[in-house]
């Protein structure tokens, strides 16, 4: 199967980075001071990747930004060093896409549709899909420095949740790695899927990501489970899934999935993350070739900023039942009654 067209973003034609880190967010005050957490994490990760000589780029997708609120890209340019902005490319997605594509009006942010936009445009040999407040651990950095990643392997990492009291703006390894700062016991990832806060760390070579066509764009009713669903598709497509061997870190905050879970346990139909119990363990998908809004009209708004204008041509059908498929090979998949990872 020929590699899908990778849109060229902006004016960036420099050497291909080893790693693209795909993130998504918007300036909406999610989970408290989102901007503060994001900027601190971005600078820390960039500093550590640079210190480990890992050529990288950050691909930030601002999905349906709120009118009147400063773009994250602008805030980064104002508050972060030039080295950070030089490593960052931003895609701003017209809000009309959210309204046109969602199948759940309660879902205010389509995290994985946004990440697909980033994956589609990422240039790195390897693509790491993560979140704006996830800190890469030292073992992961060492692996990246050694360039030890292999194609056709999905790399996963366990997440260590740290207490909210930690100073996000003065991160250091001693605090991150101190067991006393764990907000809850770390979970061990287990084969065959190595699930558990999956969306915080999924790394895969670009070609394999494109062959899978990234995250599910057929089922657009939930954020929860979409990341785990990719793992089921990956395994049934013949890819290998492994634990990279070291954790990522995440500092607790209000509004995170872990803290919202308890709030919505009785009324998940009202939850802003959508249904938890859809069949993401046993049913997979086949996105259209135009996944990731590849047909969206692009406007360059700076050397490293692209705006995706709305066009119905880029919007997938509201209903695409032919894209709902069963895995070709399920490796001892558990039942869908298991709770999703955040």
């Amino acid at each position, binding site marked *: 199967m020929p590699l899908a067209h990778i849109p060229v973003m902006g004016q960036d034609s420099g050497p291909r980075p080893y790693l693209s880190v795909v993130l998504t967010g918007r300036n909406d005050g999610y989970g408290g001071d989102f901007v503060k957490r994001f900027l601190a994490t971005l600078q820390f990760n960039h500093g550590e990747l640079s210190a480990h000589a890992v050529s990288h780029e950050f691909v930030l997708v601002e999905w349906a930004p709120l009118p009147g609120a400063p773009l994250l890209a602008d805030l980064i340019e104002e508050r972060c060093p030039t080295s950070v902005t030089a490593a960052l490319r931003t895609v701003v997605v017209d809000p009309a896409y959210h309204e046109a594509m969602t199948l759940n009006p309660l879902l205010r942010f389509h995290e994985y549709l946004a990440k697909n936009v980033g994956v589609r445009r990422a240039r790195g040999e390897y693509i790491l899909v993560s979140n704006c407040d996830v800190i890469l651990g030292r073992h992961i950095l060492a692996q990246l420095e050694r360039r030890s990643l292999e194609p056709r392997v999905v790399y996963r990492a366990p997440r260590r949740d740290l207490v909210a009291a930690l100073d996000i703006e003065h991160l250091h390894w001693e605090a991150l790695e101190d067991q006393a700062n764990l907000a809850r016991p770390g979970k061990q990832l287990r084969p065959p899927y190595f699930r558990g806060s999956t969306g915080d760390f999924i790394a895969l070579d670009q070609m394999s990501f494109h062959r899978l066509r990234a995250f599910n764009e057929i089922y657009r009713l939930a954020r929860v489970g979409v990341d785990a669903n990719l793992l089921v598709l990956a395994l049934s497509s013949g890819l290998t899934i492994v634990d990279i061997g070291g954790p990522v870190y995440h500092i607790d905050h209000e509004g995170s999935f872990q803290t919202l879970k308890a709030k919505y346990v009785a009324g998940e139909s009202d939850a802003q993350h959508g249904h938890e119990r859809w069949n993401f363990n046993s049913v997979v998908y086949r996105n259209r070739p135009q996944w990731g809004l590849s047909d969206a009209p692009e406007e360059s708004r700076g050397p490293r900023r692209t705006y995706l204008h709305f066009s119905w041509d880029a919007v997938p059908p*509201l209903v695409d039942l032919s894209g709902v498929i069963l895995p070709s090979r399920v490796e001892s998949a558990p039942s869908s009654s298991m709770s999703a990872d955040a």
Partner: protein
Amino acid sequence: MIRRVLRAVGLATTGELHVVEAKLRDVRARLDKATARLAEATTTAQRLQETRREESRRFKARLAELESDQQRQADRHKETTARASRQVAQLTEALRQRDLQLEASLRQETRLEQQVAAAKQDLETARASLSAIEVKLDILEGAANVLDLRTRAARPHPGDGSR
């Protein structure tokens, strides 16, 4: 010299005669003693012989007794062996019958296992299909809700003067 003359005419002196008589008496005494010992030995030998005959008779009687015992035992063994052989034959036949029944059961069990495996496979397939159907229903329900919202948003409200 007198002795030589007497000896020449076949005569002996009185002394010699006494000596000879003494010797003769001695010899007779020894002969008597030997005869007595012979008689004693003969008596002893007869006693021994009698004893041996008695022992021989006892041995023969004991031998006959043992032979009789042995024969009885042999007869008993023969009977026991025959009985055991009959039992072995019966058990062998029973075992053969049981083997036949077991083989029949195994064949039936294999058929049942195959049926169960096929049913399980069908069940898994049905479950997977059901899962896919549920996902599709979710999508259809979501789409219906979205379209409903869009339609309501698009329709004019009563009293806005558009009709």
